[in-house]
């Protein structure tokens, strides 16, 4: 088949969908990968980025517990929200030292879910700081391990010193509906923030 040399070639098959993403953040072991897997239509995929490729010298990894680990792993999943729009969920690398990866990830994100384990809420402080400083909208999702939620939402809010208006939800990262509701709460927050502009 003869095609023009310069004209854009239109793919013959299915057109490429529009894409958006949401970040799932929080400390190590808080349930990020579990949450991505619960709502994703595919088994969570994983990419590994060598630190040298990501712009960091391996010699600079002072203080990182596992110096042999020279890659940053990132899990992600996918939700086809309509035939021409796909939502990707990215679990942020647990180590906040990998902030340079977070910057990349946060660029162009609709918003974020910060997962919190109430037994060790401090493991999610860095994620909260990150999104707050950059003005990226987020919601807090308290992952009740064993499905238990010993603390009421107001106590969690206080413990995390959350700014006014940040929704706090109790969730179970293993449950699809629960994770879906967390994502919907984030979108509702974005819609509410957009609405006064009308």
């Amino acid at each position, binding site marked *: 088949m003869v095609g023009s040399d310069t004209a854009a070639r239109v793919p013959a098959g*299915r057109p490429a969908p529009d894409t*958006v993403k949401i970040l799932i953040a929080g400390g190590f072991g808080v349930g990020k990968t579990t949450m991505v897997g619960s709502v994703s239509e595919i088994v969570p995929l994983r990419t590994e980025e060598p630190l040298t490729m990501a712009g960091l010298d391996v010699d600079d990894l002072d203080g990182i517990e596992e110096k042999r680990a020279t890659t940053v792993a990132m899990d992600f999943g996918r939700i086809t929200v309509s035939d021409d729009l796909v939502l990707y969920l990215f679990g942020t690398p647990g180590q906040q030292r990998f902030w340079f990866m977070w910057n990349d990830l946060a660029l162009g994100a*609709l918003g974020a879910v910060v997962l919190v384990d109430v037994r060790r809420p401090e493991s999610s402080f860095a994620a909260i700081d990150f999104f707050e400083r950059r003005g990226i909208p987020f919601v807090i999702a308290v992952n009740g391990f064993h499905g238990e939620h010993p603390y009421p939402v107001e106590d969690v809010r206080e413990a995390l010193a959350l700014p006014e208006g940040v929704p706090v939800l109790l969730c179970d990262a293993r449950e699809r509906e629960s994770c879906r509701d967390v994502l919907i709460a984030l979108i509702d927050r974005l819609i509410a923030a957009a609405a006064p502009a009308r």
Partner: protein
Amino acid sequence: MGGGDSAGRLVRPFALTGGRTRPSRADFTLITTVTAADPQPEAAPRPQPEHTRILRLCAEPVAVAELAARLDLPVSVVVILLCDLLEAGRITARPPHPVTRTTPDLDLLQKVRDGLGRL
């Protein structure tokens, strides 16, 4: 995949990326969707084996992050290979939906919400 080695530029010692580590990332974010051009350009240089693998995986539209995961290659390496393919006219790239805080896209948000509601 037709074409010969007409352009010497892409014929080089092949270490996947020819030693480059800093591509122009601008064209390819994690959720940029890439699709193999159909038909493939006839005049383009013959693709390297890794390029051919990518072309096979993006016969249907696929996001950069998914490509990397399926190829088991770092995103940064895949992006460099995609730059080659884009320059050769072998793929098209669709950027993600632009997100701005100042002018949020209510229609888009509603669409995402409706989609999540159906889960």
